[in-house]
């Protein structure tokens, strides 16, 4: 069955987004894209190092991939907006992942600044993907500010702890009409599948693939897990519990 993911003006077949950070070698990136079947990859914007000019990492990303620049390094809305505008100027599209982090201990996103940046950038025509702490009220504010998806964290960035925020993410899935994309914290393919079974629209994975012993094989595993989870969600879980016979029936008075 066809299950296209229409988002940000694109039609995607894969619901796995991958990050391009933390790889030992950029040459791995095309292999990761290939084995995971992912069509969206996040990138960050940094100063060119004039003393040590490295290879341009864009040369390693297949042309058909959608680039999702993030605003990493931004500590407030203003900086995030500045980075997003610069990123668009490269001519690589108008998707942006808003990431505002002012906490260097846990790397938790600042929802309030993220909402501010989302509002400004959505008005400028960006497809805004805000990374956030899964708070229902803030997710509504992001929706109202014009976000095209909401990206709650599963666990703090880089922890590989899994879907620790499951109950909160579930509420966002139930209550917010936008696609919910679980970003950060997913450590294993089974956890990505779990998020998809819940009804997440997609999952973004970076560290779990980049830090695997065999990243290419792990990328493939994530691709399959996301697919399996999605199919399970579409199929509707059919689990039927066993119901115990009550010793003192509550509805006895009706007979």
């Amino acid at each position, binding site marked *: 069955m066809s299950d296209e993911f229409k988002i940000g003006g694109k039609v995607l077949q894969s619901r796995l987004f991958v*990050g*391009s950070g933390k790889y030992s070698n950029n040459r791995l990136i095309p292999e990761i894209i290939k084995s995971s079947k992912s069509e969206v990859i996040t990138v960050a914007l*940094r100063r*060119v190092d004039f003393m040590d000019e490295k290879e*341009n990492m864009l040369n390693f990303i297949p042309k058909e991939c959608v680039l999702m620049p993030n605003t*990493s390094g931004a500590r407030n809305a203003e900086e995030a907006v500045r980075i997003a*505008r610069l*990123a668009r100027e*490269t001519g690589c599209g108008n998707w942006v992942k808003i990431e505002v982090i002012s906490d260097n201990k846990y790397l938790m996103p600042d929802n309030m600044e993220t909402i501010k940046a989302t509002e400004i950038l959505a008005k400028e025509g960006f497809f805004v993907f805000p990374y956030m702490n899964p708070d229902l009220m803030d997710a509504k504010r992001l929706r109202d500010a014009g976000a095209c998806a909401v990206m709650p964290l599963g666990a703090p960035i880089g922890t590989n702890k899994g879907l620790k925020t499951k109950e909160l993410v579930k509420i966002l899935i139930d209550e917010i009409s936008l696609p919910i994309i679980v970003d950060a914290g997913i450590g294993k393919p089974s956890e990505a599948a779990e998020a998809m079974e819940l009804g997440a629209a997609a999952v973004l994975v970076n560290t779990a693939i980049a830090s695997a012993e065999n990243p290419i094989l792990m990328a493939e595993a994530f691709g399959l897990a996301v697919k399996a989870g999605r199919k399970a969600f579409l199929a509707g879980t059919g689990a039927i519990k066993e119901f115990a016979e009550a010793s003192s029936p509550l509805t006895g008075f009706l007979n």
Partner: protein
Amino acid sequence: MRFALNGKEAEANNGISVEEYLLQKGIELDKIVIEYNLEILKRIDWKSTVIKENDKLEVLRFVGGG
């Protein structure tokens, strides 16, 4: 002539354009973005913008990130 390049002090010949300077430094011009005195410098203006004393130039490109 001295100016600030990516937060560090740099030197260039008088009258050199932004684009010439970057080519001189061996930078691939594809998919980079330039901020000139805190404003985005459009690609079409790279040739005509001449670096002046005390200018602030930021040259950025994409790197790996999650």
